[in-house]
């Protein structure tokens, strides 16, 4: 019984924590792709916005 409770507690992250995790990962991915990845077409399209938002661009 106690073991079962412990196991549940270990994996039972709250829905707020789950939301934070999912949003955090997606947000970081989006910023990396739109702001930092250097693929040439992406860089050209995002160029002005990267400069204007203080990303490291060149």
């Amino acid at each position, binding site marked *: 019984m106690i073991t079962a409770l412990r196991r549940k507690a270990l994996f039972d992250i709250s829905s707020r*924590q789950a*939301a*934070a995790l999912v949003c955090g990962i*997606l*947000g970081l*991915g989006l910023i990396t792709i*739109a702001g930092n990845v250097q693929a040439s077409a992406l860089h050209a399209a995002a160029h002005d916005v990267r*400069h204007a*938002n203080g990303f*490291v661009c060149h």
Partner: protein
Amino acid sequence: MIAKSLTSGIVAGAAAGLLTGLLQLSFVQPVLLHAELYETGELVHRGAEAVSAQLEWSGIDPVRDGLSLLFSMLIFAGYGLLLSAAMALATADGASISPREGAVWGVCGFVAAQLAPAFSLPPEVPGSAHVDLSDRQVWWYATVAVTAVALWLLAFGRGHWRVPAAVVLLLAPHVIGAPQPEHFEGPVPQEIAALFASRALGAGLAGWVMLGAILAWLRRNAPEDLG
């Protein structure tokens, strides 16, 4: 909760990104285009003849400016998701953040994501001297991360140790120092570069305040059955 955090982050980010993009196209882009004339050598600073500091507005470039608006919305959607994640962690179940408080959250996001990196790597006009890109990107990510942690400690930490700990985290990236160029080589007049940096930061602050307020409003008012 997950769906609500996701959609409010993305929608608030897209809205704030559109508004910020328009602000940037009006106030930041003309300065950038002016700098590009010096980057390409079309205008020469400190050449034989004095160059007028005035520049006619070059009009709208539909493709270039449209892509800028699109990417502004994408980047702010990313900011919105990160801010939504932080708000989800900070608010107890059932509690919510008011739009006014959300604006303060936005200021903190601006400090972490734009002001702190700009303290040692100012927003650059095209043509600035620079060193290895990946070194600066690593420094940029690290600075944004430790600044965000420091602000979180100041806002939500317990115990007196949190203040010195936050100060150490805030100062560390700048004491260690961002990668700097060995030589100056920028062909762009300093007046343009300075105006660009302050306009970029000002538009960024406006964007983040709008983002924080819109996001808090959406998180409070979006229907709960969204998830």
